[in-house]
């Protein structure tokens, strides 16, 4: 049984008891506990079930590297899956439940997978779920989906707030252990702006537990003094519970601050804060992570990392068991043996893989009378939901048992791996240190910044320094270097025990049988064993990145913090290559998972995206508008009346325009003014037609192509004066076309004297269309709008209803139509004035759907409907808007390519169904025969399709091979799940072919 000791626990506040529950069982802990330490203290070792085999699992670690103890935290909409119990500070009323088990943690049906384990090796899915193909969708995928994933997605919206913080600093120090503190000291004393971030809730890292002597005092005293000195520096900022999670180009770093954890149960305001930091230099003082040893049964609850065993003892006064066997290949684990022994608990044996362990700590253990078995290993662990004992064996052998030893916990240490993640995120390379058996940052190949200088400096045990004096020295040096300081920082003396050399042990015992290797876990979270990596190597997945994906080693939420090095060492033995030649997999941010809430920050709900509103937006909302998003704009799709659905509303609006008069808010149309001595010449390059010859006072329809020849926008151009043109673009095209113009102007014709200005939002624009349009506007007074004074495709400035306006005689509906621009501030006033003046005619506001139907009846194309980035103007029978005389325009050369000139291109036609029905959108027009993969051949597709209230039947526009040459032919149009529909090829202009109405 794990239990709480009556004294000790340097992080505990025993005066404050906290109640919490796990799987419905009530328990108590103290302020300062983590959920993990409180669970252990209450005697609970079994905390979860493994992913694949549903093996019982307990805590392996005490920090962020923990792979097993993932819990559902909280309830309802605040429930959070896959939280590591080691990173959750205990708070009063905390509710946690275990994951990946059914019906309960103690009795889990899925554990049958464990018995079948030998039939579920690496690559099982790839081999088994391949055939028959038809099984994938109906049988395999649902099965895999049910089995996959650990936690469950919370129900409902996250009610908490999150925020982003921006910081610019000279030096960012990641990690507040003694190396990070020393680095901050050096950089802070040099006067730099320093930001120090520590992921845990205390300073000093593991030095507080192991308590070496620093600068003539105990480590905790030195830490306290140093933190106090740093706090007095105005140029130093320090944050606890803030983890530097990722490093990116040019000194960009992302950090996650857990504000909830800073004041467990009492916090107010945002729950988490995402820091977006720019740092000139970054010191990575992120410490090291202890490696497990691979022996059979190393995943049984009660087998833990040696450092974690003494962390629980020293930090939280938790004994993980009464009899703790220590198994190691290095001296550091002896600290655990000594700590357990000093706490009055029993260490039955220290199993040391090394034949002749000699260090100072080994000597101390001998002096205390602890039994040391040298050259030995563990053959197997007894127990299923809890360790009951171990069998010892010779390390060099095949695992024959020498002796059974009863125990209820095992503390293992396979050595330490520097946490090189931050160094590696942005391209820093690693070296294999043979003597210390670890990968460390290669100083000759660091991540570099914009200036070509090293951007990240690594310090402390993250740099491979394992002795306290070395850790401090590298911290000071990195801090001074990061600060660009020439002064050598004053050294810090430190004392800790001399250590003997490590003996790398990747499989224990070395000649273990296949049966034992199938029980040696490498990746605890993803259930990857020694036998899986060896199988991958045998099957040819010998590259480390391949073996990783084949076995899923290191692909769980812990990203292999405790498993990657062991896994690649096993791989290197299998393929008989040295470890550095096998190499590591890529380290990618974030270091530990970020919440989606923190990533989103405030950008959710109404703040997700800005919404652009026209000056008449509120009026539309108050008059029944249903909205269509167009880019960031919201445009009325239709205005609903009482008891009307949206389609009925759109048809009513169309009919009103055709018979009487309608009004449309066209303010969203792009309005770009192009001005200057060379503006005409410039527009002749931008548009396919000629704009330089357009007389002042006239309008001309224009097409804009990309340099690749494809149609990208259209609109009416009005010549305002000798040197100024107003270019209308589509609603979605304003910014894009303005940027397109500026690109050509700045980069290609930079010596042309032209200015462009995007005035889209400066003007409101109202379309008044229909046979009664002129009558309505004349009632407003102030301008001569007669056909003689203002014919089709002209514009005039004047006053209407006492407001300054520019009236364009242009039509997108085929009716008599005026587009009236007015300064944006007067948009609503003019809108209301027109509405009032039109009341006798029953003037009808109409939305985008009616606008679409009206234009389709007239065969007018729409960018994004008839065009899709593969369509040239010639395909749309718009050759009349392309100048044949101009030597050049953007896209002209591209349109000369043979494929663009092919007579077989799909070209615009109208389609009329034989039965009057409405065709499906995007439907294909079928051609005889099948293609090479057995699909029906096609010869065109529907681009726009509507029910026309004017013609009382379905109408459509389509692109059809050689379309205009095939009038009156009947074609087949495909439908999903139904027989094809027959349709006749017709002229796309279906209404008022002569164009008499718009000239009215």
């Amino acid at each position, binding site marked *: 049984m794990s239990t709480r000791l009556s004294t000790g626990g340097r992080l505990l506040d025993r005066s404050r008891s906290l109640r919490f529950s796990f799987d419905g069982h009530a328990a108590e802990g103290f302020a300062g506990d983590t959920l993990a330490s409180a669970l252990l203290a209450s005697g609970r070792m079994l905390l979860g079930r493994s992913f694949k085999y549903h093996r019982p699992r307990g805590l392996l670690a005490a920090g962020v590297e923990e792979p097993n103890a993932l819990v559902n935290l909280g309830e309802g909409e605040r429930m959070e899956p896959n939280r590591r119990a080691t990173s959750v500070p205990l708070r009063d009323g905390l509710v946690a439940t275990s994951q990946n088990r059914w019906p309960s943690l103690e009795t889990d049906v899925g554990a049958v997978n464990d018995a079948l384990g030998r039939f579920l090796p690496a690559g099982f899915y790839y081999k088994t779920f391949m055939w028959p193909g038809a099984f994938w969708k109906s049988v395999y995928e649902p099965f895999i989906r049910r089995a996959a994933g650990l936690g469950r997605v919370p129900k409902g919206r996250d009610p908490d707030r999150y925020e982003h913080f921006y910081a610019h600093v000279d030096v960012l120090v990641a990690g507040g252990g003694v190396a990070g503190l020393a680095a901050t000291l050096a950089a802070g004393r040099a006067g730099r702006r320093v930001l120090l971030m520590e992921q845990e809730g205390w300073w000093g890292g593991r030095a507080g537990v192991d308590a070496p002597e620093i600068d003539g005092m105990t480590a905790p005293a030195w830490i306290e003094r140093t933190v106090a000195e740093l706090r007095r520096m105005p140029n130093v900022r320090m944050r606890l519970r803030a983890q530097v999670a990722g490093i*990116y180009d040019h000194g*960009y770093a992302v950090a996650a601050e857990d504000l909830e954890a800073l004041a467990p149960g009492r916090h107010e305001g945002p729950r988490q804060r995402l820091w977006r930091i*720019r740092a000139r230099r970054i010191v990575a003082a992120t410490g090291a992570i202890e490696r497990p040893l691979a022996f059979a049964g190393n995943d049984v609850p009660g087998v833990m990392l040696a450092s974690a065993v003494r962390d629980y003892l020293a930090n939280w006064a938790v004994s993980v068991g009464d009899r703790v066997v220590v198994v190691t290949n290095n001296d550091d684990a002896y600290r655990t043996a000594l700590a357990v022994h000093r706490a009055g608990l029993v260490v039955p044996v220290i199993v040391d893989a090394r034949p002749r362990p000699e260090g100072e700590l080994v000597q101390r253990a001998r002096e205390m009378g602890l039994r040391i078995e040298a050259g030995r290993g563990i053959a197997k662990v007894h127990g299923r939901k809890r360790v009951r004992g171990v069998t010892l064996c010779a390390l060099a052998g095949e695992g024959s048992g020498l002796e059974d030893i009863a125990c209820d916990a095992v503390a293992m240490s396979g050595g330490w791996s520097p946490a090189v993640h931050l160094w590696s995120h942005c391209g820093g390379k690693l070296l294999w240190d043979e003597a210390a058996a670890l990968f460390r940052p290669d100083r000759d190949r660091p991540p570099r910044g914009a200036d*070509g200088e090293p951007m990240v400096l690594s310090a402390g045990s993250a740099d491979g320094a394992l002795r306290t004096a070395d850790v401090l020295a590298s911290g000071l040096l990195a801090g001074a270097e990061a600060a660009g300081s020439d002064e050598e920082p004053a050294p810090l003396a430190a004392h800790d025990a001399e250590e003997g050399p490590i003996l790398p042990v990747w499989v224990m015992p070395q000649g273990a049988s296949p049966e034992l290797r199938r029980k040696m876990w490498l990746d605890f979270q993803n259930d990857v064993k020694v036998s899986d990596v060896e199988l991958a190597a045998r099957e040819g997945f010998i590259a480390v990145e391949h073996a990783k994906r084949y076995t899923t080693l290191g692909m769980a939420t812990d990203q292999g913090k405790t498993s990657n090095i062991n896994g690649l060492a096993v791989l290197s033995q299998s393929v008989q290559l040295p470890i550095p030649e096998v190499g590591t997999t890529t380290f990618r941010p974030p270091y530990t998972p970020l919440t989606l809430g923190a990533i989103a920050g405030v950008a959710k709900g109404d703040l997700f995206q800005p919404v652009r509103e026209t000056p008449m937006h509120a009026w539309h909302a108050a008059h029944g508008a249903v909205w269509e998003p167009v880019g960031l704009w919201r445009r009325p799709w239709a205005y609903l009346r009482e008891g009307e659905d949206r389609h009925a509303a759109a048809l009513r609006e169309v009919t009103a325009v055709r018979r009487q008069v309608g009004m449309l808010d066209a303010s969203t149309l792009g309005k770009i003014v192009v001005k200057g001595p060379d503006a005409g010449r410039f527009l002749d390059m931008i548009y396919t037609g000629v704009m330089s010859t357009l007389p002042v006072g006239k309008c001309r329809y224009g097409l804009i192509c990309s340099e690749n020849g494809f149609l990208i926008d259209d609109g009416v151009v009005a010549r305002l004066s000798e040197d100024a043109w107003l270019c209308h673009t589509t609603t979605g095209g304003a910014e894009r076309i303005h940027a397109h113009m500026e690109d050509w102007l*700045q980069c290609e014709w930079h*010596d042309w004297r032209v200015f462009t200005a995007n005035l889209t939002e400066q003007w409101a624009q109202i379309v008044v269309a229909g046979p009664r349009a002129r009558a309505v506007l004349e009632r407003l007074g102030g301008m001569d709008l007669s056909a003689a004074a203002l014919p089709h495709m002209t514009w005039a400035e004047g006053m209407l209803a006492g407001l300054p306006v520019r009236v364009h005689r242009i039509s997108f509906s085929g009716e008599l139509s005026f587009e009236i621009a007015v300064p944006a501030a007067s948009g609503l006033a003019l809108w209301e004035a027109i509405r009032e003046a039109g009341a006798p005619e029953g003037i009808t506001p109409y939305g985008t759907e009616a606008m679409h139907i009206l234009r389709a009846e007239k065969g007018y194309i729409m960018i994004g409907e008839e065009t899709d980035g593969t369509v040239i103007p010639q395909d749309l029978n718009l050759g009349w808007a392309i100048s044949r005389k101009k030597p050049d325009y953007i896209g*002209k*050369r591209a349109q000369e*390519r043979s494929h663009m000139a092919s007579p077989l291109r799909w070209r615009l036609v109208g389609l009329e169904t034989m039965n009057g029905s409405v065709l499906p959108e995007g439907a294909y027009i079928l051609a005889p025969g099948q293609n090479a993969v057995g699909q029906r051949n096609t010869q065109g597709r529907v681009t726009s399709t509507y029910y026309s209230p004017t013609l009382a039947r379905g109408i459509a526009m389509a692109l059809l091979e050689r379309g205009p040459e095939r009038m009156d032919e009947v074609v087949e149009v495909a439908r999903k799940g139904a027989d094809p529909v027959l349709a006749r090829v017709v002229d796309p202009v279906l209404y008022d072919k002569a164009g008499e109405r718009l000239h009215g």
Partner: protein
Amino acid sequence: MLILFCPHCGVEADETELAPGGEAHLRREGPGSADEAFEGYLFGRVNPKGVHFERWRHAYGCGKWFLAARDTATMRVWGTYPASEAGPPDPLRDAVTADRPGWAWRDLGGAA
């Protein structure tokens, strides 16, 4: 997340303010050009590991286009200059040469 100096408005611009525009110093091929030349202009782009010249627009700043000399592998930036320049200014070429002796790029107008 790059930082590039905008030579027009003089600020160190974060990548979130910038829009990339691909390879710099392309020579436009218009009507009458040979098919191969036009294809090269429209589609043929170098994608070097190392020294590269690129177009960038300070889209959420002054709106101006500029060109940058950058190492695509190490993110070293040697400098930026206005898009109207026909080629990189000499001091910039010298800085690249000092750092990457023997570097070569697509036609830079006879230099380097």
